[in-house]
Each structure stands twice: as C-alpha cells, then as structure tokens.
C-alpha cells in the first residue's frame, strides 16, 4: 500500500506509513522517532551496512542514503504529499568515519516552495556536536492539496 497516496493527516501517521511502505528503508533497517514536529531518524548498526571491514566503518553510500531517506521522512512529516518527492540533487559531505554503532540524523527543511524543497540533514553517532556526515539536497514535490485544486 502506498504511504504517500493516502496522505494521512497526522505527522506520526504519515511518517509511519512512509517507513512501512518503503522497502529500501527496511533494507537499511532505519526507524524514526517523532517529538512534536522534531524527527530523529535512527540507523542501528548492522553487518550488511559495512563498507570497510578493517575499521570497521559504515559504507559511505549507506550514510548518504540514510541522510537522503531522512530528508524524505522529514518532508513527509512536514507536508501531506500526493506522491513521494523526487530527489533532484544531493551533496554529501563526509566529516568522520561512520563507526560500527547506531547513527542518528535530523533534517532541517530550509525552504519549501510549491514545487521544490531545500533540505539540510546532519548525521551523528555518539555526539551530535561531532557529525559524521551532512547532506544538502533539493527535492521535487507533489503536494496533496494540488489534487484538490484540480
């Protein structure tokens, strides 16, 4: 069942529906917690996420993907969307190795227009002040209200 197609009304419902209906978020094993409108995405460590077995470190692509999925979750929390936003571009900055432990991320919707949203995301592990990676991205939106308008 599609999460976005139903456009459930509450933030928590929209977030839960997106997480449950997106196979890749399940593949990563990510979850998210909501406190009011503040969302924290959580990526528990798992062996299949490792990119470098010697350190061991999370795959850089996994960290980037987790940041991108966090942005999509935050957009679902923020607005009822008719369809899942399409990623236009992302810039991922790697600051520290992602160690073999739980990773957290929070997204900040810097601007949301009629068609395009700009989102910044930061991921950390033990200390939020020492982020492991950051993402800036643009996303193409299909807002639910456009359906009602015609």
């Amino acid at each position: 069942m599609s999460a976005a197609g139903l456009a459930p009304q509450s933030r928590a419902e929209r977030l839960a529906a997106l997480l449950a209906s997106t196979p890749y978020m399940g593949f990563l094993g990510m979850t998210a917690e909501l406190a009011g409108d503040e969302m924290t995405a959580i990526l528990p460590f798992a062996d299949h996420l490792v990119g470098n077995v010697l350190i061991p470190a999370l795959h850089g692509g996994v960290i980037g993907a987790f940041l991108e999925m966090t942005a999509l979750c935050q957009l679902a929390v923020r607005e009822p969307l008719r369809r899942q936003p399409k990623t236009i571009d992302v810039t991922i900055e790697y600051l520290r190795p992602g160690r073999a432990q739980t990773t957290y991320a929070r997204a900040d919707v810097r601007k949301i227009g009629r068609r395009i949203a700009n989102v910044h995301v930061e991921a950390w592990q033990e200390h939020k002040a020492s982020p492991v990676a950051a993402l800036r991205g643009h996303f193409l939106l299909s807002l639910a209200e456009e359906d009602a308008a015609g």
Partner: protein
Amino acid sequence: MTFDAEALAQIGARMAQGTPQAAALKFRLVSADAAGAAMAVPWSEQLVGDPDTGVMAGGVITTLLDHVCGLSVSCAVIAAGQGIMEYGMATLDLRIDYMRPAAPRREVIALARCYRLTRSIAFVRASAFEDSEDDPVATAQAAFAFTGPRPVVAPGGAS
C-alpha cells in the same frame, strides 16, 4: 606508464563482493581498467524507494556511485604505477544530480573516471544508466582524500 591489469582485476573483484554492503546489494564488476571503472546493481524488490512506481531508491544509486568512484581511484593509482595496498582513502564529498528515475526492474550500471590525481586528493566524475552513458539516470562528482601513506604521483597528476 605501467599498468597492472592483474592487480586491478583483484581489486575489482574484491570491491564487487568483498565488502558486506556491496555483497548485500549484489554489486557486479563490469570493468576496471586504466580508463575507469564500472559496476552494476541488479533491481530487487527490497531496494525499491517508491512503492508506487517500483523505482529503485536513490540511496542504492548513491552507494553504487560512491563505490565505483572509489574503484576508479584505485584504477588511476594503479595506472600511475602505484601499488594499490599502499594507501587508504576516504570520500570527502559526493554530489549527485538525478536526471530521471531509474527504469523499474532494470539493472543500473555506474561508470566512473578519476580525471585528476594529486598527492592528497583524487577527483572523480561518474554517471549511472541502464543502457547508455548518454542517457543517464544520475551523474556524480566526488573528491577523495588519501589517508595513511600517500601514493607518489608525478607533478601534473596521472591523467
């Protein structure tokens, strides 16, 4: 210029299946030579990012691009006559532009070229596509930093 094809075949095979995330995504080595590196990821149900369309998640493409960009740096280092085990490297940044959704139920290939190698940094361009580099799903630009012992590169780089 010396070029150790055997070393590249080894590193390519190790990159394709030797890291847990690459194995989990079933990455396949397409090519690794002096010109660059290519890898493919097969479509699978569990990698879908949008259940409405069946399109693979952008995150899978991100991981494939990051992975193949790293391999292309190894290609460039080997092409420059350096031993592959003499250094480590870390992704500094990775920018990806998504031109269009990947075709559902199709394998996606990513092709990367390290176009500049300096003593401390490698610069890479890459694209992801199903059939042709001229019709990309996504393009990428990345920079990698060498960690540990640095490869020795002649002035002007390897390109």
